[in-house]
């Protein structure tokens, strides 16, 4: 339940059921996968048509529906929720671009030991040769860019060990 529960508190149980049957592996309520109806799914139908979260009831947001024992059930699980970006802890070992631009010079090699403040590469963007520096001591594990390459924002440029 805790893994997949969703927005509307009254319908938290129904959302759980929906996500499970949507082909995703989940720890909860395997019963729906087998095609058996469960209390959770039924409650989803009852609420969806009546007093549920209006977003889904009036069809303005595209919600997932599922078929159990020949009956179609609408769920509260909309695309926006499914596609939301989950929070990830910041990993200082993965160096990504903060701005789109062109790599014009790479100063390090794979396996090289580097220290904080050392220059990794030069990323030309916004009329500037931006110097990208190491924020920590370590060893270069892999480099994912070449000189002359154009990269977008949030592109993984280099990994540290």
């Amino acid at each position, binding site marked *: 339940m*805790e*893994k*997949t*529960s*969703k*927005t509307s*508190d009254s319908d938290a149980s129904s959302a759980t059921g929906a996500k499970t049957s949507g082909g995703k592996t989940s720890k909860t309520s395997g019963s729906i996968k087998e095609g058996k109806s469960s209390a959770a799914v039924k409650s989803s139908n009852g609420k969806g048509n009546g007093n549920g979260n209006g977003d889904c009831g009036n069809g303005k947001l595209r919600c997932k529906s599922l078929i159990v024992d020949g009956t179609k059930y609408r769920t509260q699980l909309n695309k926006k929720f499914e596609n939301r970006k*989950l*929070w990830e*802890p910041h990993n200082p070992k993965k160096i990504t671009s*903060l*701005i*789109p631009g062109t790599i014009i010079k790479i100063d390090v090699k794979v396996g090289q030991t580097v220290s904080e403040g050392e220059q990794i590469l030069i990323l*030309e*963007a*916004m*009329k*500037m*040769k*931006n*110097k990208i520096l190491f924020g920590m001591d370590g060893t270069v594990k892999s480099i994912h860019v070449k000189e002359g390459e154009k990269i977008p*924002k949030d592109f993984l440029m280099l990994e540290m060990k």
Partner: protein
Amino acid sequence: MPLKRKIQELQKKREVVLKGGGDAAIEKQVAMGKMTARDRIISLLDKETFTEYDLFAEHEAVDFDMDKKTLAGDGVVIGTGTIYGASMCIFAQDFTVAGGSLGNMHARKITKIMDHALKMKIPLIGINDSGGARIQEGVSSLAGYGEIFFRNTLSSGVIPQISVILGPCAGGAVYSPALTDFVFVVEKISKMFITGPEVIKTVLGEEISMEDLGGARVHSEITGNAHFYAQSEAECFEQIKKLVSFIPLSNLKKAKKFPPKDPISKYQIEDIVPGDPKQPYDVRDVIKAIVDDSDFFEVHELWAANMVIGFGRMGGETIGFVCNQPLVLAGVLDVDSSDKAARFIRFCDAFNIPIVTLVDLPGYLPGVDQEHAGVIRHGAKVLYAYSEATVPKMTVILRKAYGGGYIAMGSRHLRADFVFALPGAEIAVMGPEGAANIIFRKEIASAEDPEKVRKQKVKEYKDKFANPYVAAAKGYIDSVIEPKETRKILLHAIEVSENKAVYLPKKKHGIPPF
């Protein structure tokens, strides 16, 4: 001797209340690396200047057997004292008493000291360390929060308000710090959020620690809610003292003047700003070449670092600096840096602090995420803040000033009083590459060797427009100066602006693009 006995009685009563939540609770507080509320106030204020009020305040709650409980000072310490001789109003929530929870009397004590601060026209410092609303007192504690927010708003722009987060500050409570001018946080101790990790887990199924959700680093690097970040409470108090030395007591006063001092000679603008417009440098070194004793006190150091803001002194007078930072993201204006600059400009304007703007930016940051994040609305705040500010405004264009960025960064058109440019300045509507591609599109396309023609046209455009003299010829900049003349001419401009008086059209208030 009846009076003597009464005095003894008072002393005994004081002793009990000054213990706060008792020895066990104090021990727990100290084990968390935190000071007690009174210790915090005492170590922040000048020695022996703290005078406490409402020591014997008691709560009036009766439900849930609350009438059988006494809470020392109702969980908050209020009073007045001085920092470097300047009077301050201060309150500190006492976590050892009922978790510093905010009940009706607790809130009334805070609002009492807030009212004092507004009446006496002296700054307010609030130390937050509270579990939140006192549930037993129900809606009365909500009312208390509301009264505090209202006073924060009334005091805004009249007296400086400083919030120090030294413990949890969750739910509605976060809005008082959010309404104040400067927020201080301390690593591992400060925690601020609207909904805690538990709620996020229940509602969204995502797991996140308190530190990752609303710890000190998060608020000083990602959200920008905190202006100053410290490793310890002691460091935090030093930062507060330093800030207080730069700002005035109220909007009716000017900041205290200090004896002028020359900058350290190793900072020379000529050596700092590279001739190649594509080479980055640290704009803070340029500030250090300008301010007294090279002493620059940065605000919001870790958030939106492509804009540098902070205080320094010139000729002994406090100056607010707003500068692009070419070292970070090429110094572009984006959503966060616009917010950062705009709010700081409004603080300086409200408290009679002249503004020096150092310009070196390629423009606003292009990109879908920026556009969708509302860079139009946020960028407009900078224009609004500069246009509205009536304090002396001095601008120095160090290098690049292109497009909308040129207008936004304290340009003549937004009524900068003085605009200077270094000889390497490039003031144009857009960069030479982009401009040549548009203006000479036909020539380039129809040429036998388009690349050669394109390069030639770029050079032509660059020679003709990428300099300060076109703008100087139109009077948009007052003077093209040598780098070493910068401090001298700024000092002169500040002196000349001493009695500046500008009046905006009469209105209730403007409507900035919040």
